[in-house]
């Protein structure tokens, strides 16, 4: 498959602060590519540059064969953007919003009305299309927000954390919509800080942290970086000392790495069951109460932890 997006050394600086530090990657036509990283990692800044909203400090990207810096109008015609915030007019109905945004993408007349009907069907809001957006639940607003990005049938869809702040049911519906769109041939660049979403949706994942792309590949390729290691997560009380526990368990045989995040200690080990008893024993020795324990098989979270020493939700 040819690349629809080629990113070359993209940099964005705000004074002395460098939000994006020269990232490069490509996305093949028809794939779902996720940018996974914690809040403030540079995901939204990257999407804002790729969608021509921000001008890169240096570097460039091509979408189709069009440069985002030299031919932004051609790029805008090719892409759809679903921003992180709900960028809709709350005093307009869903239909009125879709019609307005469709007009901004050059649609008009019967073609516009027909496309608006299709999108309303796709986001499951045909029945509520005449209600003002301000009367909608958060999930319904998110669906309209996505619908706007689909109106002109873009070849490449940017979705910036589209599931933030919504209920599990709406989240499920949005993830299913992304998969459906991809099945219909749409290429998707999806940013998230939810490891589960990236894992469920993506053909390939780029892990971004502090403006740098620290890992890139398929999920299998990425998890190989941490071997077959599992992650044992110990949740402790607020008044306990996680640093002391991490130090104590790092000497346990079979523990490869132990890191602290808020009130939890994450332990990377080839087999969590083998080290569990010894770890709990260490905690008891120091009078540290463990409130709960999670065991996770090799996943992107473990990769992030392995690469940065921090959990994704830091």
């Amino acid at each position, binding site marked *: 498959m040819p690349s629809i997006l080629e990113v070359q050394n993209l940099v964005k600086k705000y004074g002395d602060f460098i939000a994006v530090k020269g990232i490069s990657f490509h996305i093949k036509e028809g794939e779902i590519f996720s940018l996974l990283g914690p809040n403030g990692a540079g995901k939204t800044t990257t999407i804002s540059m790729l969608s021509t*909203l921000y001008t890169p400090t240096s570097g460039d990207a091509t979408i189709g064969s069009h440069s985002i810096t030299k031919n932004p109008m051609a790029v*805008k015609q090719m892409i759809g*953007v679903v921003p992180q915030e709900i*960028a809709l007019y709350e*005093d307009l109905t869903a239909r009125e919003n879709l019609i307005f945004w469709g007009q901004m993408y050059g649609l008009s007349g019967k073609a516009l009305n027909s496309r608006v009907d299709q999108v309303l069907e796709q986001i499951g809001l045909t029945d509520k299309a005449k209600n003002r957006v301000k009367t909608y639940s958060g999930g319904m607003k998110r669906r309209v927000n996505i619908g706007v990005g689909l109106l002109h049938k873009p070849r490449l869809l940017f979705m910036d954390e589209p599931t933030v702040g919504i209920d599990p049911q709406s989240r499920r519906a949005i993830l299913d919509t992304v998969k459906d769109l991809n099945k219909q041939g749409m290429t998707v660049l999806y940013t998230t800080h939810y490891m589960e979403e990236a894992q469920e949706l993506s053909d390939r994942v780029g892990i971004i942290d502090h403006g740098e792309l620290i890992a890139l590949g398929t999920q299998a390729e990425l998890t190989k970086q941490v071997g077959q290691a599992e992650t044992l997560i110990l949740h402790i009380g607020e008044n306990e000392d996680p640093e002391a526990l991490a130090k104590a368990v790092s000497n346990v045989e079979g523990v490869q790495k132990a890191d602290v995040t808020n009130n939890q200690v994450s332990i990377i080990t080839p087999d969590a069951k083998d080290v569990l008893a010894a770890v709990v024993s260490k905690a008891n020795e120091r009078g540290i109460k463990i409130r709960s324990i999670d065991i996770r098989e090799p996943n992107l979270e473990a990769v992030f932890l392995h690469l940065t020493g921090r959990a994704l939700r830091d």
Partner: protein
Amino acid sequence: MKKLFLIGIKDLKLRFRDRAALIFMLLTPFILTLGMGLVTGRFSGGDSSGISDIPIAIVNLDNDSLGDALVDAFNSEDLADLVETTLSEDPEAARLLVDEDEVAAAIIIPAGFTQSVIPQNENALPNEEIRIEFYANPSRPTSAGIIKAIVDGFMARLDEMRLASMTSVSQLIMSGRISPEDANQVGQEMGARLQQNDAGNTNEATAITLNTSTSAGEDVEFDVLSYFAPGMALMFLMYTVSYGGSSILAEKSQGTLPRLLISPTNSMQVLGGKIFGIFLTGAAQMLILIGASSLFFQLKWGDAFGIVLLVLAAVFGATGWGMLITALARTPAQVGSVGSAVMLIFAMLGGSFTQIENMPAIVQTLGKITPNAWAMDGFTTLALGGTLTSLARPILALLTMGILLFLISAVLFGKKNLVQK
């Protein structure tokens, strides 16, 4: 251009769906106008106009029937409360009174004026038209406008009289009742008769009074609400334009402005659309208020075409101020608070609450920067039967104001980041 229009229409729709905005845009100025009407006794048959004792100087060098008729009209009982006349024999002295802000206007009736309108014999027909000189005080636009409207009314009556004579003589020639050779003599006789009738009617205050006529011949009486209704409408027009301006910054923080800029729409179209939306909303607000006051208060605003032109010019000038406030502010809240302050200050400086002539000279000068003052000038002129020609000055001033403010705002917006929060 189409996208600019679509963005403007969208904003108009949004504004008219916002109940709070509707209360400020329409209900509040309407109720305040009603209140002003009640306070001034307009609804109880009172005739207080709020404008009185306008000082004027008249120089009658004509000393013939028409010049005397005009002087008598200004000295008539009907105008006694409105006008305070000073008679002078020296045009320069009269102009000096205006220059020194002693009077609102000087009316100089030139020698031979009556002869120029109604020639007594063939030899007396002048080569050039002799005109009444109206020397207005620019610092008292409303008062000067009122006086000018009265003089315009007088001139209109003279034109009617002259036209009636000419038409009658033409008809008599065409019907063969008189020969072309007799036309001049008949015309003179007819003019003299009309002149006599007109002079004879002076005491009945039909020649020139506050009751002037529109072009349609309809009687128009100066109404206190003709002053307060535009005053209130213009005050809340400033609210509309600053609120509209704040919507640019609100859209920025809500994310719809960046979304517009991500679509294949350039920043000039987006900003132009937003400005067009403010302009449309302001124009709709003014026209609705004018319509409502005409309907519910039977208020006569004057020439409809003139009203539309003046409204568009006033909204244009006011929108310029809205854009400047927005360009200088960082948040919608800042626009709101600065806009409210500007709304009140402009209302005071621009004569929305009280006659601008009653204020100190410095305030009157400052008032010139407000769209309120210029538009008030125009609305008062129209309410008194003024014509499109008499609107040229306020309209030109409002358009110039708008253009200057848009240029300054464009420079400031160019330095402003409309994308990032």
